[in-house]
């Protein structure tokens, strides 16, 4: 699903965010990426979703080499990847239904199909009865579930979760992780970036540890090392 070869990224001022990263993620895997602040986790995510360009190396997503991706190709890539963030990134002036529907409307889906899919996704995340609410009327956990529903409407093969539980309490954290496991069980590859030790240890899955821009550990059944 993801193939990364000798990937490096630096920012102006000689700040090296990632150095010679090599990584292979197979379809259907649930991979946790851990590391302290500034270790390069979020940079890696931004490169995978083509939000930033890297300086050297090769990055292949679902067979598509995005090393030289053009601006007009980014929307096509992003429709194939679901993304969720710590701060949810919901459109504040749109309702729950509209937020989820927007991702499909932007791609030109028909209204009937949008209505059907959005209802299914809201049911999946348990928010069907809150479709008409605005984000500020929801709890943090509910907002994250809206974001997850939105990320799934394109039925992506890859779901990237960047600190999705960072703003949530332990109960909501468990619910969100359970939801991600459920989505993974349905066949979607999940890439979870987190620094929540308990989450990583309870998952008992593959754990990649980043430190100072390097991958220092890649364990098939790993634990939180740092």
């Amino acid at each position, binding site marked *: 699903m993801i193939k990364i070869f000798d990937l490096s990224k630096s920012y102006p001022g000689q700040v090296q965010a990632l150095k010679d990263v090599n990584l292979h993620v197979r379809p259907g895997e649930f991979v946790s990426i851990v590391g302290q602040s500034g270790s390069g986790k979020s940079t890696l995510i931004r490169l995978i979703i083509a939000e930033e360009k890297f300086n050297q190396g090769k990055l292949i997503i679902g067979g598509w080499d995005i090393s030289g991706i053009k601006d007009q190709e980014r929307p096509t890539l992003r429709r194939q990847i679901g*993304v969720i963030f710590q701060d949810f990134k919901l*459109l504040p*002036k749109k309702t729950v239904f509209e937020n989820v529907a*927007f991702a499909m409307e*932007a791609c030109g889906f028909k209204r009937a199909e949008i209505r059907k899919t959005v209802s299914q996704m809201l049911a999946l995340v348990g928010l069907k009865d809150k479709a008409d609410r605005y984000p500020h009327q929801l709890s943090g956990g509910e907002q994250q579930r809206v974001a997850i529903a939105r990320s799934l409407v394109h039925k992506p093969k890859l779901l990237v979760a960047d600190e999705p539980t960072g703003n949530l309490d332990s109960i909501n954290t468990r619910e969100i992780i359970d939801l991600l496991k459920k989505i993974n069980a349905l066949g979607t590859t999940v890439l979870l970036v987190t620094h929540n030790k308990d989450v990583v240890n309870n998952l008992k899955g593959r754990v990649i540890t980043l430190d100072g821009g390097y991958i220092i550990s890649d364990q098939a059944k790993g634990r939180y090392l740092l």
Partner: protein
Amino acid sequence: MYSLLRVIKFALQGLWRNFWLSLVTITMMLMALLSVTLLVGVDYIRQATIQGVEQKIDILISLQPDVPAEEVEKFVLELEDLTEVKKTTVITPEQNRTLFEQSNLSDQAKKALEIFEEGENPFSYSVAIQAYDLEQYPAITAFIDQEKYNNLVEDKSFHDYQSFIEKINNLSATVNKYSWYVIGIFVLISVIVIFNTMRISIYSHKEEIMIMKLVGATNGFIRAPFLLEGVLYALGAVLILVGLVYPLLGFIQPWLSNYFQSNER
């Protein structure tokens, strides 16, 4: 088709859900439009005034009493041969009497006619001459001042409107100059405020735009509702302007008509 409808839907949603921001933007556009409209209106009235005054200018020649109609006709033909003359109007003694009677002169002055016997008309022929240009009047007066017309012309009155027009022009140029400064400052303030409003609008939508990109919206699909929103702001401002200016025009229209008619006379 779906995209177009969605763009319209999103633009209207944006307009309504950012109500106060929309209101401020429309108000700023309206103020800029109002100042330009007022300036154009004032300039139109100024031009109409000058045109009206220019049309009023003529040389009025009173001919000697008892000059026969044939000689008047000959004199007029000679005048019309001049390249400077645009139009001549012959006023018969009867018309002159009627004009006198209908004039604003006091009744006492009008009673002066009573000393003449019935059927006797103290008025003579008059000729009103209009030139193409203000600067051509001296040539026409020089032509009339020729010795051969001494026995024909009793009096000539050249209303010196030229200085009057110059005064109006100077005054309107001054008014224009300062009104442009005032309007210029106003438009500048409006532009700055609109620019800032737009920047605030873009800033407040920055996160939203980023999210739209993240979920796979193309740049065109993101931009179109914002552009349409801008068009709707402008349309709103123009409609309010029309709504304000039309009743105002209706209100001052009788006064304007009177004003223009009095200038055309």
